[in-house]
């Protein structure tokens, strides 16, 4: 099925709202999902895979940081998916950097499902002068003046690595200026390049985004929860309208 980015955004926003995500969190999550899908990454699949966890009562509850020092903290996501807090986590990381004497903030998020949802928030947060690194499992990514680069553990398919949903620890570092170049992490190889991601985005604009029908239907069922069932009263009083022959 071919869909537009707008449709992905709307579906995910409504699905998250239908799951109980507060106003703002639903939009963050939807923006993350469409950012990923438009670049050939599995936003919808991860969200659909996270539905069961997102149905639990505390899925969108707040997170309490454990501070290590001025520029460093830890969060325990308790198995919740990152789609429930992508913007809040990155905002907090930036605050840590602003408060630290060296301009660098460090944040570890433990037991975080589907950490890929943090990537779009990271890209959106980084200004031209700053840089941000995040790493989990078989993935290491950096957003900086040269754009986004992603590295994947050698021998692992990048799509499989990025699709990892099981809870892991995610480590994020934000620096108010460009971070010193990191020596290549042993055992990691370049994943999708910035140019490839741009190409994928252009293609999704040009042709629409191919999505899996069954995923779409699963998420649509959840998204439909935000609609008020029709009634004669709402049809007559809710919107107006009338006889077009007059």
């Amino acid at each position, binding site marked *: 099925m*071919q*869909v*537009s*980015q*707008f*449709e992905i955004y709307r579906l995910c926003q409504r699905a998250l709202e239908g799951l109980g995500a*507060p*106003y*703002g*969190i*639903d*939009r*963050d999550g939807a923006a993350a999902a469409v950012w990923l899908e438009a670049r050939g990454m599995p936003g919808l699949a991860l969200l659909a895979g996270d539905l069961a966890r997102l149905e639990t009562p505390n899925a*969108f*509850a*707040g*997170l*309490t*940081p454990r501070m290590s020092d001025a520029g460093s903290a830890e*969060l325990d996501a308790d198995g919740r998916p990152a789609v429930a*807090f992508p*913007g*809040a*986590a990155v*905002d*907090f990381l*930036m*605050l840590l950097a*602003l*408060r630290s004497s060296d301009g660098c903030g460090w944040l570890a998020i433990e037991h975080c499902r589907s950490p890929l949802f943090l990537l779009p928030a990271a890209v*959106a947060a980084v*200004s*031209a002068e700053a840089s941000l690194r995040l790493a989990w499992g078989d993935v290491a990514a950096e957003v900086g003046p040269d754009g986004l680069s992603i590295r994947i553990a050698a021998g692992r398919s990048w799509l499989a690595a990025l699709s990892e949903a099981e809870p892991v620890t995610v480590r994020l570092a934000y620096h108010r200026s460009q971070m010193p170049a990191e020596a290549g992490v042993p055992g990691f190889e370049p994943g999708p390049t910035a140019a490839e991601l741009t190409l994928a985005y252009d293609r999704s*604009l*040009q*042709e*629409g985004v191919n999505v899996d029908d069954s995923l779409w239907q699963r998420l649509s069922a959840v998204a*439909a*929860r*935000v*609609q*008020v*069932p*029709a*009634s004669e*009263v*709402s*049809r007559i*009083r*809710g*919107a*107006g*309208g*009338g*006889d*077009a*022959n*007059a």
Partner: protein
Amino acid sequence: MTKSAQDEAASPGATAEPAAVQALMRPPGAVMRFARLGAFHATRLSFGRSLIRRMGRENWRFTRRLVELDDRGFGRMVHEIETPKGSLSFVGFSNYLADEDRTDRVIAEKWDASFVLSAGRLDAAALARLAEAAPLQEAGRYGADELVLSRANKSVRLFETVAAALAAGRQPDLAEVVSVGYLMRTTAVYGNGKFGLGDLARAWRDGIFSLPYEAEMLTVFLIREFSFALIEHIARRRNPAGAVPLSIRTKRALGIGNATGLGMAPFLIGHPKLFNNWIAARELALARVRAVPAPIPAKAKRFGQLLDRAIGHVGQWTTDDERQAARIARLAKELAALRDRLQRDPGWLDRPRPWDALIAWAESVLSPEGVEMLASLVIELHPERVDDLAYSTGSDEKERIDPAMSLAELKALIERAYDWALPPDYDDPKERHFFWYRSAEKDEPRLGERFSEPGAELELPLGIGFMAARLHRALTRLPRTALTASVAEFLLENPEWRGILRRIQSLAHLPYGEIRDNTLGERCLPIDLLRCKLSIFGAAKFDPKSDRWTRITLFQGAPTIEELGEPDADDWAFPYFPT
């Protein structure tokens, strides 16, 4: 410059405008009220006007490539449009529709005609696919090359009358034409990715469109051309030897109707940065004209001509709605009185800053309808001062958190920028009378009464004043020491505030982004918000059918495609048609 700063700088009013002009901008507390927004008229910055100017300036070429219509006018028609940035295609499908199936509601399932605007040329396969999909409208699927989807119904009051007249070899009665104003009336114009259509970013990247709703306005303009071609075809088939085409005079008197329901109101509330830029452009245009330092005889003469035309226009503006009819009657008296005054005292505006004096006078004695009509008229006088503002009506719409702002600073920001939101007693049922929701029926946005209708638990977050006041109350209840905490810390632990807090921060320097009235209160009249948005599109002849939907006319008086390059093609504000 950060992205946020770029967006702010791009916002009209936040640019490096001379202080004298900035000082003349009307305060948001006066402008962003239901009653004021609900009195807006189109200006030369309205999207329909700027589109007409652009098409003429860039010499867009229109070719009717395909006409396949039967004797009754059922079939299809394709226009191709060549622009300097690329080509477009517009296809219209005309189908039989029984009278009982014709409704203005968005929940309708059949229409007289359906339309698609596409990027590039349509090949036979695309045409066949759209012939299946377009008549289904929301139930069809579209591709990324298709940019806009629309539908329209024939005007039962006028279509057959005009067809019969043309077939009889004569022009229709102009008074009747003007009183209706259109041959077809649209009930929805969809773009930006809906039902699989191309995303807005796609349309903008291609470069043909760069302003909000430009593609949608082009579609409406082409539906008007479609309606002309359709009715001329029907007349010719009825009387091949004797039928006449529409005269230019008749065409000019025909726009396209539109029936608009509640959906526009949630849009304005949900896109505050865009809304700010629309209103700021208008207000800055008015301020620039008010800053004109001295009378200019040619402009004064032109004002007199425009005033005459506006008086004629208002005289041809009819509605069955009692509230609007009374407003029109008062407006007519006010404009006539102004003309009398100018005739009695031709030197009345012969003073420094004449247009500022005129608007100040209007604000002291005229109704909001009158003030806003004069605002539109004086903006019309100085294209050289205002037309560039049409290019500042877009926005990236991104809202951003300032993570380091302290809660004390946030509280002060709310008290400064949302002071209008704090006074209502939201515990009073009258202040939370309404809730906005999405109906399961075609996803139609609707308004419910909170205390008597089901569904309030699925309320859309459109009570901005209420939410801002709640956040303020929550901050007020925190211990003073807690107010030193940052927004990022607060939001990490209290995610329920993320949406409204980000909005408040993002609009801190965008004064026209919020409607400064309670959109949940029982005094909320959605029709005011509909009118505001429609005026920005360029609508006229507002004809409310209730406080929740209205009919309007677009492009009445506009040049036809053959006239776009003519020197006076842009001179169609407040059109009047002597009959």
